[in-house]
């Protein structure tokens, strides 16, 4: 370590500590804001009263039945789904970027989104109804796992996973899935086309408690276990052989990360459609502030991803009341320019 690098490192440590303290507060703030805001007006006092009512606390502020129903049946599951999906997408993005040692990697590279899109489009066009209203999410989840598994198998080279091959296989499989989805949209009727389009733009609008509970275990698995791979991901920055010399079980870690990413992103995509940008940008953004240490980066990504998606959904459902703008449009419209700005700033600062 050179003398010049030491102050940079300690500054990053202080920043990391600050960020890990600030992010949970930010998330709580976003949740409070999102729960209290929407097409149906509910004041903070009413929110509190409604939430405390089951515990037998007498209402601090009067509210009507419908407000309580909206809060419990529509808004709370929606915010909860936003937290889950945002956290899952962002932490998966951080892990992928670490695994590929490439800040441009995102879960989409593994074919998760494109496989899910193809399967969703097929289920719509070919009329797959085996699971009732959960047929489309079920198909999307299976599709994302299948394409990920395919890419993973293709990148096996004598029992070892070649990360470069995985990247290239990902690009090829993505193109193939894209073509398949194109074929499906070509075969689709007008109504089916609408369904596919809206699914591809993403939405948390279909959130109900059963949807939240169906995604919860898979996404939480990723959010809780991926941080345990932080040491390995840090070691990966030295290259795979470097990591192996540090005693990291390289193949096992790669397998674990790919599986966790596929499960948590697949589950997120299945319930909310494809929501781009979060997985790519959140970790990148944090890296500009806290540096590349995955011990900070992974949990911080989950927190910031959750916060941003909750806020993006808030915008999506309030900007055009009583209508709603698909959340994929919001994340891209708000996030991309901000990201570009940060990129320019960060470049000047860190010489990236």
């Amino acid at each position, binding site marked *: 370590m050179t003398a010049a690098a030491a102050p940079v490192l300690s500054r990053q440590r202080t920043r990391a500590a600050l960020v890990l303290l600030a992010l949970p507060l930010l998330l709580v703030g976003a949740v409070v804001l999102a729960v209290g805001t*929407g*097409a*149906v*007006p509910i004041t903070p006092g009413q929110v509190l009263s409604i939430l405390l009512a089951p515990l037998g606390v007498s209402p601090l502020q009067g509210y009507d*039945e*419908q407000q309580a*129903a*909206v809060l419990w*049946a*529509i*808004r709370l599951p929606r915010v909860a789904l936003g937290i889950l999906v945002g956290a899952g997408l962002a932490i998966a993005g951080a892990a992928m970027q670490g695994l590929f040692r490439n800040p441009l990697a995102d879960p989409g590279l593994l074919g998760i989104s494109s496989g899910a899109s193809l399967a969703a489009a097929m289920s*719509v066009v070919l009329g797959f109804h085996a699971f009732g*209203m959960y047929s*489309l999410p079920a198909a999307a989840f299976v599709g994302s796992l299948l394409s990920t598994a395919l890419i993973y198998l293709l990148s096996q080279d004598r029992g070892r996973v070649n990360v470069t091959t995985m990247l290239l296989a990902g690009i090829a499989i993505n193109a193939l899935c894209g073509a398949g989805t194109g074929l499906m949209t*070509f075969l689709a*009727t*007008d*109504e089916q086309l*609408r*369904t596919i389009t*809206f*699914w591809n733009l993403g*939405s948390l*609008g*279909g959130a*109900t408690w059963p*949807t939240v509970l169906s995604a919860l275990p898979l996404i939480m698995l990723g959010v809780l276990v991926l941080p345990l791979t932080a040491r390995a991901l840090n070691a990966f920055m030295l290259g795979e052989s470097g990591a192996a010399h540090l005693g990291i079980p390289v193949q096992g870690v790669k397998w674990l990360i790919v599986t966790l990413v596929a499960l948590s992103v697949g589950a997120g995509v299945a319930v909310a459609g494809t929501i781009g940008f979060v997985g790519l940008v959140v970790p990148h953004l944090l890296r500009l502030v806290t540096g590349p240490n995955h011990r900070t980066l992974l949990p911080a990504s989950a927190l910031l991803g959750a916060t941003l998606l909750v806020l993006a959904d808030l915008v999506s*459902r309030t900007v*055009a*009341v*009583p*209508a*709603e703008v*698909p959340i994929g449009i919001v994340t891209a419209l708000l996030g991309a320019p901000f990201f570009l700005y940060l990129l320019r700033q960060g470049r000047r600062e860190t010489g990236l």
Partner: protein
Amino acid sequence: MKGKLLALTALALLSAASAASIKGADGVTVEVTNPKRVVALNATTVELIYRLGKQATIVGTDITGTYPPNKIPSVGHWAQLPAEGIIALKPDVVIGTADNFAMPSNVKTVEQLRAAGVKVLVLPASDRGGLDGVKARLNMLGQVYNVQSAATSLSKSFDTTMQAVKANQPKTAPKVVFLYAHGPASGMLYGTDGGANELITLAGGKNAATFKDTKELTAEALVAMNPDAIIMLTRGMEAVGNLDAVLKMPGVAQTNAGRNRRVYTVDDSVRWIGPRLPEFALKLAREWKADFR
């Protein structure tokens, strides 16, 4: 005292008379009493409510609810209806059609609305069932607003118009395609199930497109069908430009319809079968009778 009691009883009877329980197309029965705030989803629901003179009750619709011209707030695209946005309009009842509610993105919306205590009345599908379907929906709306006699007389007026249509049909049925154009280079042809086919048949034509659902317009397929007439939506005609531009669309010039410039336009709302179906049919029948004899 007695008079007061009588008045009260009369009042109770009156309100009982205006309360209706209507079984929706999804099997869910909805109780409605003189709804004052209605969210009407799908163009034809809005149009039918207007026909019953109850448009003042509509507080929200979707992007299709544009006829008759109005300033009713829209809750967004018909294929993705927002639960909270609809609830925010404080509707006494939400009325929509089975085809729109069956969209995968809307199935949950209905569930969420009902979970929040909002009444949702599902009318039969608006893209199937032809004029009988329109009558069935009209009849249900008549019950919602307790104006059954208005609904019945409207239904009868449909029949009168249909008799006029029969009298005006061309003797030999022209082969017709329904072209849903998005622009000068692309469009969809409408098959044998749906409003387009219904309209062609009612007006005395024969759908040259023999497939189900819709298919992309390709030059060769159109030439092979060789229709005598082409029906377009006014919006589609505008998207393409004008008649001359339509004749330049793939394959059009090589058909009988193209050679004889037989392109007819109908109002955009025909896509979902609504109360103006007999009028559209009459207009087309008259035009075809003049052009094809």
